[in-house]
């Protein structure tokens, strides 16, 4: 099937195209030089590559636990079926189908589930398979993994890489994810780590060693994405220092995720403020660091992370219901509902810091737009965030309605920078694809996947412009037309095939301590009917 998109105003930062009127040709799911076929008249419309979300919790054990314990969340957002879509529910933890439809309606075509435990990876992939339209991948939690910490302690770099490769293959994961390295292991004994040099109980390693070890192994293996790091002390006042230490602890590539939650000054909640000035100064100097925003919105949501101790802290702060989970040998998890309030000084400052991440890091190629869905707020709010980034006036309007702490204890109010459409295309498409190492995504060059989003843009209603596309095209097929889903093809799931094999010693440990036998552990190929193995530099 071929398509011609005529006369649109194209934004394709990866190829340096900044608002040029041009035609785009699509054939067999790819962008080609010339093709004949159905013509879409894009006169007066803007054409972007399909959006990519680098960090969104949409699938797996933890997300599903969140769904199970928040019936009140679903009740406020029922979604009826249409001729082509299934029924489901929102709101902060939407059903898999609604997740696919709503992303596609916003012009997003590729999303990354950022935390799978290998032990429940099957569940993650089952849900990803049921998330229509989108291409997907998932990051494997390795920052508190028994084998990883063991080999880092031993200084056995070859076996560390071997382990990483094996776990990525066994969980069908795409990247190495660290969540509060060492802290989640300590949480199993009722403790956390407070600094990068706090010892991890029973392993005699420190978070610093885990970070540096995994970052080095990750780059030596040539994995497409850097280590994806949810740092220590997330959500704690004064944690910007931990973040800076984390950046300095590694010499290899590192992606700091939901940086907003990691950029706080202050001794406590009373003098809580923004630490983005220091962090931005450092990131602007470093070439090995990328990040995503983790913007918060004033809305009710469900926080969920593998960071058990952080969630226990939030549970103690809010008194809301709480789920805590231990995943043997691998990680933990916590879930707490949360409402960000405009009149709450801490929430107001958090809102400002999220925007500072995007506005104070000078190179947009180092930033991706996220809310850490659903932690900062549901992904449906991305258009609102784009409007804050593109318009100082929009920011001032919000600053006028929220707690004055946002103006007093953050730098945001003094920032004049406004994103252009080109830069928005960078942080929602091109930079994200580049950071992920997905060569066929995030651009419209010849040979790229034909994933496109076509919007009707109005300066006066930036949020409305990005809320729904005029067309979303996935693999050369129209999936959304005038904001309505018209087709629901299945997307691909990328995973890293880097080989790797457990040693005899590993097998013995596995047999002794896991509740599952090794034979039943790895996710079989059948679980990824549309899986796409990515081979890497390898070991």
């Amino acid at each position, binding site marked *: 099937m071929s398509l011609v998109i005529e006369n649109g105003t194209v934004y394709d930062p990866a190829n340096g195209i900044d608002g040029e009127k041009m035609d785009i040709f699509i054939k067999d799911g790819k962008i080609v030089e010339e093709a004949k076929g159905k013509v879409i008249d894009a006169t007066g419309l803007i054409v972007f590559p399909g959006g990519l979300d680098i960090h969104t919790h949409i699938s797996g054990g933890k997300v599903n636990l969140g769904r199970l*314990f*928040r*019936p*009140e*969340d679903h*009740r406020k957002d029922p979604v009826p079926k249409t001729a082509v879509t299934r029924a489901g529910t929102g709101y902060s933890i939407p059903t898999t189908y609604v997740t696919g439809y709503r992303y596609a309606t916003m012009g997003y075509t590729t999303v990354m589930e950022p935390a799978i435990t290998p032990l429940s990876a099957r569940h993650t992939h089952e849900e990803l398979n049921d998330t229509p339209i989108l291409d997907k991948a998932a990051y494997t939690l390795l920052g508190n993994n028994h084998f990883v910490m063991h080999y880092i302690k031993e200084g056995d770099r070859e076996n560390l890489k071997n382990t990483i490769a094996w776990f990525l293959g066994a969980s069908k994961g795409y990247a190495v994810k660290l969540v509060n390295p060492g802290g989640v292991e300590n949480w199993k004994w009722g403790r956390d780590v407070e600094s990068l040099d706090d010892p991890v109980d029973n392993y005699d390693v420190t978070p610093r060693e885990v970070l540096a070890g995994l970052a080095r192994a990750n780059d030596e293996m040539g994995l497409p994405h850097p280590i994806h790091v949810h740092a220590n002390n997330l959500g704690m006042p004064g944690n910007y220092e931990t973040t800076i230490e984390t950046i300095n602890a590694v010499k290899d590539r590192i992606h700091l995720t939901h940086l907003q939650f990691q950029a706080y000054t202050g001794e406590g909640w009373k003098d809580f403020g923004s630490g983005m000035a220091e962090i931005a100064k450092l990131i602007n100097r470093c070439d090995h660091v990328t990040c995503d925003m983790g913007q918060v919105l004033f809305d009710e949501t469900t926080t969920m992370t593998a960071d058990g101790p952080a969630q226990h802290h939030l549970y103690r702060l809010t008194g809301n219901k709480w789920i805590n989970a231990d995943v043997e040998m691998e990680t933990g998890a916590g879930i707490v509902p949360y409402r960000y309030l405009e009149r709450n000084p801490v929430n107001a400052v958090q809102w400002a810091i999220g925007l500072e991440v995007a506005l104070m890091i000078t190179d947009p190629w180092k930033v991706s737009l996220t809310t850490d869905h659903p932690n900062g707020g549901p992904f449906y709010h991305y258009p609102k965030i784009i409007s804050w980034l593109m318009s100082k006036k929009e920011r001032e309007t919000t600053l006028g309605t929220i707690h004055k702490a946002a103006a007093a204890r953050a730098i945001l109010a003094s920032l004049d920078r406004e994103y252009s459409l080109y830069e928005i295309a960078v942080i929602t498409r091109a930079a994200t694809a580049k950071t992920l190492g997905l060569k066929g995504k995030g651009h419209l060059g010849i040979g790229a996947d034909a994933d496109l989003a076509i919007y009707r843009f109005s300066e006066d209603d930036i949020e409305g412009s990005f809320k729904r596309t005029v067309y979303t095209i996935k693999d050369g097929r129209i999936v959304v037309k005038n904001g309505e889903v018209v087709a629901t093809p299945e997307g691909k799931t990328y995973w890293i095939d880097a080989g790797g094999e457990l040693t005899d010693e590993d097998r013995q440990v596995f047999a002794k301590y896991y509740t599952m036998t090794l034979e039943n552990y790895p996710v079989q190929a059948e679980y990824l009917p549309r899986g796409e193995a990515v081979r890497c530099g390898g070991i």
Partner: protein
Amino acid sequence: MVVLRPKVAFTIPVEAECISPDVFAARPAKELGKLEVLWGNKRKPLSQLFEIDPSGEEDEIVIEGDVSAVKHIGARMTTGLITIHGNAGMHLGTEMDGGRIVVHGDVGDWLGAEMKDGLIHVKGNTGNLAGAGYRGSKTGMAGGSIIIEGNAGDEVGELMCGGTIAVAGSLGTFAGTLMTGGTIVCLGALGGRAGAAMDGGTIIALTPPQLLPTFIPQGTDRPSHVGELLQQLKGNGLPLAEEQIGALFARYEGDISGKGKGEVFVRTG
């Protein structure tokens, strides 16, 4: 006044949130038939299911016939009166914030769930979870009154934080579970595990119940506020005898497995 008469015997459930004085008052009488209801999974105009007979101006809706398969009647209403001559379905008057509903018949589950204000008077029996909070909610009924002349099912007043539920007949198990405020009055048999995990609020039992061991007796009295409340409920149509109103009550505090700030009054003489 608008009279609604079912045109069909409902065999599948109908969702009819539009049957509310607030919605009816906002439209000219001849357009009421165009209001949408869900009949199973199909959208239908109200006129296809009901004969609609407008007469007069007052914001009263009268339903004549069996609507036990019709859900959400009077949901979120804030004013006016709904009178039902027949049985009514689930979620009657949920989240209502004012006005009155009178049912000359039985009602299904979730009657007046999460209601904030207003009065619901049921002459017959009701199902489970009257005045309760929906699954996942932190609080149930917060204000207003529910008067049930017959019996009520299980988990009545679960999570309630305000208002009054008065039942002339018996209550099922777990009445007032997790309640933090408000009052439940039961003239008949109070079911097992009443007030389990309650952190506040009051349960008044005129027939001695089997309480959980986590309720601690605090002495016997003729509390004036209990008498006043019962007198008021009698005025609202609850069939109470004078000796019940002026009775002697044993007071219990509980549930001490939690905060223990709730109280249960049990008639002793």
